[in-house]
């Protein structure tokens, strides 16, 4: 047998990162998140490609978030090229995004995060310690994938979502089947809200975080950013306001906002800005350690929203459509959308031939780095005597509350 290899990486998160603890004498005085994943340089890869290739390539940034990347890229390029899409396409895209939300949240809650609360290493052990919850979770997750597959053609990297429309429009029977299955899991989602709320949180309560989310459109969509501190930023100025910079300890750019403020993005931030009254008492929407509850609540919202989108589509009657014809010309477009982990921004410029001349993609985990950094500092401040190993584990656990998607962050 060969010696165990020391692998110092974050587990049960998407992508590659690690926590670095800073010692002073015997005490741990600071903790830093280092996203050391290799940058694939997507913004540079996209330059020079034709408009009809941009979304296909950009969605490869991340598998978990591929549908939302695809839709954001399509919206940005359609805006740049003045492409109008039908109401049907718009509703179907929203449905696909809700499917992605369901899949991503179910993956996080029932496979990646739950082991933290039940003291096991991963989903295989959940089969013995929480078999029923794992079973419910996988069923919900599968349905999120089925929605993405029905609309997008594939659960990961959905090829059927095209500039100007869809390759094939799903038929009424397919959508009805989805609606039936969604109605059938409603009860189990509600039961899981109770279950998740009953889990014991071992992390200490940390200082409140300000929140930022997309607003001004249907759920998860919009044309501006809004913060819990009362700031509103239109899509066109969002990139400048987020203020991404290169920093030495991470391969992902870091949003520094005005240099002083820090905002979290994601499920908790979204609920912070628009809390459904029935859940107001269930969680503190400024406390990052309540993020698992925020995710299960959002999972419930996504199921309800998907049901209502399908019923609207069926009521209006599905029509066979071909994607709008696109005449290339010079232009620029910016899309804002809520990915499962928070604000996602895609911005493209095209030249008169419809060739991409500049791209800028800002992802939720990149934005969340400042909030993670601040939360880690607070955790160390209250926990500095807990010993190296325990501190490291709680830091990893705290980072998991943000459900980081590192491939998105670094891209």
């Amino acid at each position: 047998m060969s010696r165990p290899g020391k692998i110092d990486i974050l587990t049960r998160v998407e992508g590659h990162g690690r926590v670095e603890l800073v010692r002073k004498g015997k005490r741990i005085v600071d903790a830093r998140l280092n996203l050391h994943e290799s940058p694939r340089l997507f913004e540079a890869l996209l330059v020079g490609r034709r408009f009809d290739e941009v979304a296909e390539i950009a969605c490869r940034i991340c598998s978990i978030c591929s549908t939302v990347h695809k839709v954001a890229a399509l919206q940005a390029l359609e805006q740049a090229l003045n492409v109008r899409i039908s109401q049907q396409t718009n509703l179907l895209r929203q449905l696909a995004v809700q499917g992605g939300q369901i899949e991503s949240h179910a993956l996080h809650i029932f496979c990646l995060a739950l082991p933290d609360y039940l003291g096991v290493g991963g989903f295989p052990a959940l089969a013995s310690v929480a078999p029923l919850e794992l079973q419910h979770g996988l069923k919900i997750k599968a349905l999120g994938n089925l929605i993405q597959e029905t609309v997008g053609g594939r659960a990961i990297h959905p090829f059927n979502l095209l500039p100007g429309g869809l390759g094939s429009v799903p038929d009424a029977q397919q959508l009805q089947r989805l609606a039936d299955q969604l109605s059938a899991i409603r009860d189990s989602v509600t039961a899981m809200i109770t279950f998740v709320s009953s889990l014991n949180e071992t992390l200490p309560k940390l200082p409140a975080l300000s929140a930022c989310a997309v607003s001004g459109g249907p759920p998860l969509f919009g044309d501006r950013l809004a913060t819990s501190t009362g700031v509103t930023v239109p899509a066109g100025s969002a990139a400048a306001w987020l203020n991404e910079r290169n920093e030495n300890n991470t391969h992902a750019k870091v949003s520094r906002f005005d240099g002083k403020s820090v905002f979290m993005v994601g499920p908790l931030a979204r609920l912070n800005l628009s809390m459904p009254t029935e859940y107001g008492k269930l969680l503190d929407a400024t406390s990052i350690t309540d993020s698992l509850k925020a995710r299960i609540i959002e999972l419930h919202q996504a199921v309800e929203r998907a049901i209502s989108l399908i019923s609207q589509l069926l009521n209006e009657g599905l029509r066979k459509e071909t994607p709008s014809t696109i005449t290339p010309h010079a232009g620029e477009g910016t899309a804002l959308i809520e990915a499962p982990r928070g604000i996602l921004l895609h911005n493209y410029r095209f030249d008169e031939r419809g060739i991409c001349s500049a791209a800028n993609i800002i992802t939720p985990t990149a934005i969340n780095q400042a909030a993670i950094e601040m939360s880690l500092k607070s955790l160390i401040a209250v926990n500095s005597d807990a010993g190296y190993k325990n501190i490291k584990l709680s830091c990893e656990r705290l980072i998991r509350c943000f459900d980081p998607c590192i491939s998105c962050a670094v891209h």
Partner: protein
Amino acid sequence: MKRLRLAIAGLTACSGCQLSLLNCEAELPQLIEVVDFHYFPMACSPALLEGEYDAALVEGCLSMPHENVLLLSLRKRSRLLIAIGTCAAWGGVAALKNGESRKELLQAIHVCDRISSSGYSPQPLHAFVKVDAVISGCPPEKEELLRLLAGLLRGALPAPIAYPVCTDCRMRENLCLLTEQSRLCLGVLTLGGCGARCPSMGVGCEGCRGPVPEANLEEALDICQQKGYDRQTVIDRLRRFCPEWKS
């Protein structure tokens, strides 16, 4: 049946191949019983390479020195090493501009900082280690991953696919997008096994599974040209997933 001891790792990639495995929701409970997901950082803690593995399933291409260290360690510890997905097999989307200077690409978006300047142009696994089998696709089909695991449990590897997407398309009795509708479709040059997912929904094959063996590039380029797609457009599309295509 002896449990299968696996190492599942992601390198430079989107985690989509690993997610495809986690997307086998109906089969996961059964897989848990017969597979020991010993090293699987995306889904299990702790991430500790320990002892030997029946197989290492590796997603992604390589573009940083620390990935070479991990890959060599996986190779050394594993009886079989399997490339999962197009990035591991061919380089994939990340290798799209391998013909250009990485330094310039970095400078275009990142200020070339000390950490990421140690990277290099993305390379597939076979550039560094012996690869025992390849499951291609961006992402691979779930069924292919399940077949792989079923085979490994019985000590076998799946038979390599040697037919193009066109074969899948004919099996589904689709109209040919390229010859009958003059739409750009790379199916004739692309490895099959996907059930012609995209053409079946009226979307041209984008070549995500990489080149089919003995692809007749010249003939395909001629047909595409007759349909109004010049050589360079087709080659550029092909290189979206595999930089080895040459004009």
